[in-house]
């Protein structure tokens, strides 16, 4: 009977201690400008800013110059047609090649369409005619717009010519000769091929991990610089205090970031009409291990940091590398094996891919088991790591 009471007492004491740590940490978060910036301001503003930057999704009406050496009605029609595509805008229809080059150098145009002298002659003779397209390569999406606009127009105009050419034949064989096999491309997910829908889920998940690392790192740094310690009676009793400190901190950041995640991952995408194929329960179940893994990871690395500003010197630029290593932009199958292993050390890799699957592709947790289990395993590993580092720090202090 007495023993049982002890357990109850101990559990009560445990909860009291956890609540104490939780309150202390929350107080620090709210009073420290640095932590405030990273845990509240950045997560609040970044989704808005990034969506604003990428909100146009694709390049529309990219300015280009036409050098029309053919000066035929056919060539003029082609120019009218590319101008009418959503991709391109013709800013000069009758330039010579030097003028066109000058427009490129002055950044007034990003591509040149060159229609050769024999363009309509070739078409009238029933031969294949060529149009040369020159595109600036400083930005891949400009090149894509140039290619799409000029190619689709060539195909559309070509189809009309084709029908005329085959008209000499009987109906059945002309249809067959145009396309005996039909082809159909289906975009399964992110059908508009939009840039925001592609990059935002990854950026948002990364913002969560990175701001947690910076916020927790800053808080730990401040505490260390001010030589503040948690006043726990149980702290020195073997490693009991460690677990309490970790639980207290974890509850604090889990609470803050549950609200932030709801805003970043659920409300903000709705405001901007990004893909949103998931529901709150799935999102909650998925984010639980992600947030926990990130929090314990952040606590582990915060031990490495002796001054709080150094955490930023170390982790800010890493965001870019983590984005690339996640496989969202440069495909995982093309990432060298070494970097693929490095990628596995960070919760963001599994988090980003899993979130893209549930958000953009409407997958459920069962389908993304691979990512989901990895996140729980990471939570376990980083919890142990955080225990060890926290205990080490406390021992050194005492």
């Amino acid at each position, binding site marked *: 009977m007495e023993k049982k009471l002890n357990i109850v007492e101990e559990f009560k004491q445990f909860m009291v201690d956890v609540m104490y740590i939780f309150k202390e940490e929350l107080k620090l978060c709210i009073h420290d400008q640095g932590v405030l910036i990273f845990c509240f301001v950045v997560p609040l503003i970044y989704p808005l800013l990034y969506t604003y930057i*990428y909100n146009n999704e694709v390049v529309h009406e990219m300015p280009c110059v036409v050098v029309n050496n053919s000066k035929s009605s056919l060539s003029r029609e082609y120019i009218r047609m590319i101008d009418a595509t959503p991709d391109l805008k013709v800013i000069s229809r009758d330039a010579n090649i030097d003028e066109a080059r000058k427009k490129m150098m002055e950044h007034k145009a990003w591509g040149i369409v060159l229609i050769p002298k024999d363009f309509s002659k070739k078409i009238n003779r029933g031969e294949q005619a060529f149009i040369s*397209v020159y595109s600036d*390569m400083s930005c891949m999406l400009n090149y894509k717009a140039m290619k799409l606009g000029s190619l689709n127009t060539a195909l559309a105009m070509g189809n009309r010519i084709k029908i005329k050419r085959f008209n000499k034949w009987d109906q059945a064989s002309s249809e067959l000769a145009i396309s005996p096999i039909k082809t159909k*491309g289906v975009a399964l997910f992110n059908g508009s091929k939009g840039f925001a829908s592609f990059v935002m889920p990854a950026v948002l998940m990364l913002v969560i991990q990175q701001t947690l690392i910076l916020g927790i790192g800053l808080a730990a740094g401040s505490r260390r610089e001010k030589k503040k310690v948690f006043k726990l009676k149980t702290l020195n009793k073997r490693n009991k205090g460690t677990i309490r400190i970790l639980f207290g901190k974890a509850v604090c950041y889990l609470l803050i970031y549950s609200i932030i995640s709801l805003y970043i991952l659920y409300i903000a995408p709705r405001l901007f009409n990004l893909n949103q194929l998931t529901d709150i329960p799935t999102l909650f179940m998925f984010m639980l291990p992600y947030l926990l893994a990130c929090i314990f990871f952040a606590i582990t690395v915060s031990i490495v940091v002796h001054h709080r500003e150094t955490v930023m010197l170390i982790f800010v630029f890493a965001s870019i590398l983590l984005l690339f290593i996640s496989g969202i932009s440069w495909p995982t199958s*093309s990432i060298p094996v070494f970097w693929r292993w490095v990628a596995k050390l960070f919760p963001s890799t599994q988090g980003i891919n899993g979130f893209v*699957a549930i958000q953009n592709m409407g997958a459920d947790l069962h389908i993304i088991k691979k990512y989901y289990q990895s996140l729980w395993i990471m939570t376990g590993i980083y919890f142990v790591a955080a225990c060890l580092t926290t205990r080490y720090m406390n021992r050194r202090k005492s």
Partner: protein
Amino acid sequence: MMKSKANFSDFLNVTKRECNRLVRQPVYIYTLIGAPLLVAIFFITLVHSGLPQNLPIGLIDMDNTPTTRSIARNLNAFEHSEIIANYPSILEAREAVQRGEIYGFFYIPTNFTKDVSAMRRPTLSYYTNDSYILAGSGIFVDMKTMATLASAKVVRSTLMARGLDDQQIAGLLQPISIDAHQINNPWASYAIYLCSDFVPGIFMLLFLLITVYTILNEVKMKTSREWVLLSKQSMIVALSGKLFPQFLIECIIVWGYDYTMYFILGFPCASGFGVMMFGGVLMVLASQGFAIFISGIMPSLRMGISTVSLWGIISLSIGGISFPLPAMAPPLQYLAQLFPLRHYIVFSNDQALNGYDLKYSIWSIVGLCVFALLPLLVLRVLYKRLVKAKYIP
């Protein structure tokens, strides 16, 4: 402060003091040398193939005849795609896409071969996942080409049987052909674009961070007074003497990286290396100038570093590297001018990639110079803070 009689030996004294600090604190070695090296090696090894190859795709072959198997073999031989699995139905293939095993799949319907010979015009379809844009468009091109080729093959044999030659067939099949020229990057290589824009962007972020850290850490550690006194209270000598060693290291990093890109990896450097060395110096000066300015107007080390962190990270997006600036909302196009990286990217694209005459880059050069000269606005403020300000915790 302006009446100071500091001379060159004072400059050397400050520089000497700074060199001592640099070697003693590991954070300098890490940010000035370790991190840039890591970033350079990372991007060069990550994208060295230029374009992603052998992206995993799936196949659903409902027909399974010699004809369809040959289509699959041909598709497999394409550069970007590799068929890693066969699926019995679209449902299962779709799930494999969701699991992240494949980026898309090619679908051949039942009775395909029979329908082709009976002229019933069957459909070949290809499915892509554009949540991964680069992979999605890579396999899209391959699968579309394969489907079109399969169709063209049938047409060709029909037309040949009617006695037409290749030239006539080309004219019939594709009356207008687009001859695409990718100026100075004929392979449309991502390596060139990632390495020449992203890496300098991260370098700049690191330079901003370390410059703010160097200056404001003196305030925080209360050593700034000693520093200013050593330079006979001349802010010009204090700042230039202190930042000179870093300037040299940063220039060497940028030049070394450019050298690797242009001479070892063979990326285009149409303007010549000299122009890019000049651009590198401007880029380092602009970063340092902007960082000094931020150090002057921000109340603490923590705020200063936070500001340049956010500035540096946002500049990688608003700089128009992946998504072009002219395609963004108009206010952003003005806002982007406040980011030194934007000016450097325009400069490096105009010069290294396109080799335009230097006069067309005059505005990017002016832009970078303005950032380099920004410290002049905050000399007085900074002086006051360095001499007497207390560290705000």
